[in-house]
């Protein structure tokens, strides 16, 4: 049992599902998840942060319980859909925390509406070279497709183990469910991610930044590159493979709080 509640917000494309925690008048931190998880991955962190912040974690369209788009033209398109949800909730200024694909989305939101995004924290920044984008587009595209034998279930289970979800059976099961829900959207989102020039976006973004990663994250090699691209960014090394918010929530929440506390007074006092 925790203090996280769930809801839907209506947007032009359909209903966006979200989780929320914290006082309604507290500064807002928005959370965007990796492919193919859902806002569930931030629940433990949100519990940690909710005494001080209003935490809003969204299921990206195509994932969790949000509406299912037929196409995902680009990561920026996903960002626009999520800003529609943020607008519909009446949120003005906010901090973004994005994990993996969620970080890619956060970059696009920061580029689109820099005046409203007061800080961006990326857990597992994605900064692939052109060659890496080619390579990843083959490895991370469509890990499984339902078929009548049911063998795809074990494929999905082993895929999740390979990216570190096997730490506990509970996490493995929760991620399996999210991945099964999103089997159609996963290749759409991954396709958009590998088409995005995230390195260029990271270099360009003009708001305060935090870069966070764990040494056993599949994106760890890109973390050093991200830090080099943005030497001005705050940094933090946490634990937890590709699932830091689930496996190391206290340290991730602590690092995020430290970053947020360096932001202008404007953020910490909005209500």
């Amino acid at each position, binding site marked *: 049992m925790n203090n996280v509640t769930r809801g839907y917000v209506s947007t032009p494309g359909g209903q966006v*599902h979200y989780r929320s925690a914290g006082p309604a008048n507290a500064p807002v931190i928005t959370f965007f998840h990796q492919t193919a998880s859902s806002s569930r991955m931030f629940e433990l962190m949100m519990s940690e942060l909710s005494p001080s912040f209003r935490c809003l974690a969204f299921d990206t369209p195509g994932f969790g319980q949000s509406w299912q788009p037929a196409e995902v033209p680009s990561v920026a398109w996903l960002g626009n859909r999520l800003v529609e949800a943020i607008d519909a909730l009446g949120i003005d200024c906010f901090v973004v925390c994005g994990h993996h694909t969620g970080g890619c989305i956060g970059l696009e939101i920061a580029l689109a509406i820099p005046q409203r995004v007061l800080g961006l924290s990326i857990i597992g920044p994605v900064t692939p070279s052109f060659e890496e984008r080619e390579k990843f587009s083959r490895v991370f595209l469509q890990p499984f497709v339902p078929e*009548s034998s*049911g063998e795809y*279930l074990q494929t999905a289970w082993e895929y999740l183990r390979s990216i570190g979800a096997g730490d506990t*059976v509970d996490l*493995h*099961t929760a991620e399996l469910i999210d991945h*099964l829900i999103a089997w159609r959207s996963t290749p759409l989102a991954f396709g958009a991610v590998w088409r995005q020039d995230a390195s260029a976006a990271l270099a360009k973004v003009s708001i305060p930044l935090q870069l966070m990663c764990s040494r056993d994250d599949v994106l760890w090699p890109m973390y050093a590159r991200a830090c080099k691209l943005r030497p001005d960014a705050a940094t933090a090394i946490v634990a937890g493979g590709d699932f830091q918010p689930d496996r190391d929530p206290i340290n991730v929440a602590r690092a995020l709080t430290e970053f947020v506390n360096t932001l202008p007074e404007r953020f910490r006092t909005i209500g």
Partner: protein
Amino acid sequence: MIQKGYANIAAGQIHYRRQHGPGLPVICLHQTASSGAMWVKVMGKMAGERALIAFDTPGFGGSFDPPQLPPSIGTYAEWLLEAIDALGIGQFQILCHHTGACIAVEMTSRQPERVTSVAMIGPVPLTEGERNEYKKHYSTPFSPTASGDYLSTTWDYLRGLGAHGDLALHHRELLDTARAFMGRYMAYTNVWRQDFTTPFMAIRVPLLLMCAADDVLWPFFGRSKELRPDADSAVLKGANFEPDLDPEGVATAYRSFLRKHGL
């Protein structure tokens, strides 16, 4: 168009799908271990005709998980009545399936003045001996294991119930069952200790009994009709997944039942 949402009750959040329409709302209650998603096709068939609301029972779908084994099936009925209150609904009708029928008779027994009709797919008037027998087969949870072999066990179990008639259904049911491995155990534990027949006999509003010949509960369909010769009845297709595999049959039977009784 179906809208999703949550009804907030003291115990937690109850997730639902809702299709607006005329008339007294129809409350749809699902079987174990499905979710309100099992009513989406029937909702589509009845679009514009009726207001329908399909709840996810606590422990299933997007609803809260009971922190411990609920004391009886009546507890589920009380939670769902509270959810109906939270949505500002007064009187309503019930369309239910398997475990949903077990919950429906408890809702009707608690607040008979609010329920204007009951339609059930797969009524469950089992004797105590039969319930003890069923308990052996349907009360062991498919608990997740590190190897992941519970997934093929669950997949094959759902094939045995007829979900393989449609791959999208089989996939969705696998997902719902995996999510609700503990909810399934809790609900079935209470189903097999419920005396369904007494509240079933006490229903005083129009009653529709439906079942498919390849439903596991088919043997009890004849008995339920004998117990309630006053009830309307209809035979459907679709094994244990009639609303998904025979949505037209469900909608046609239900529509004609409502019309006959001026509901």
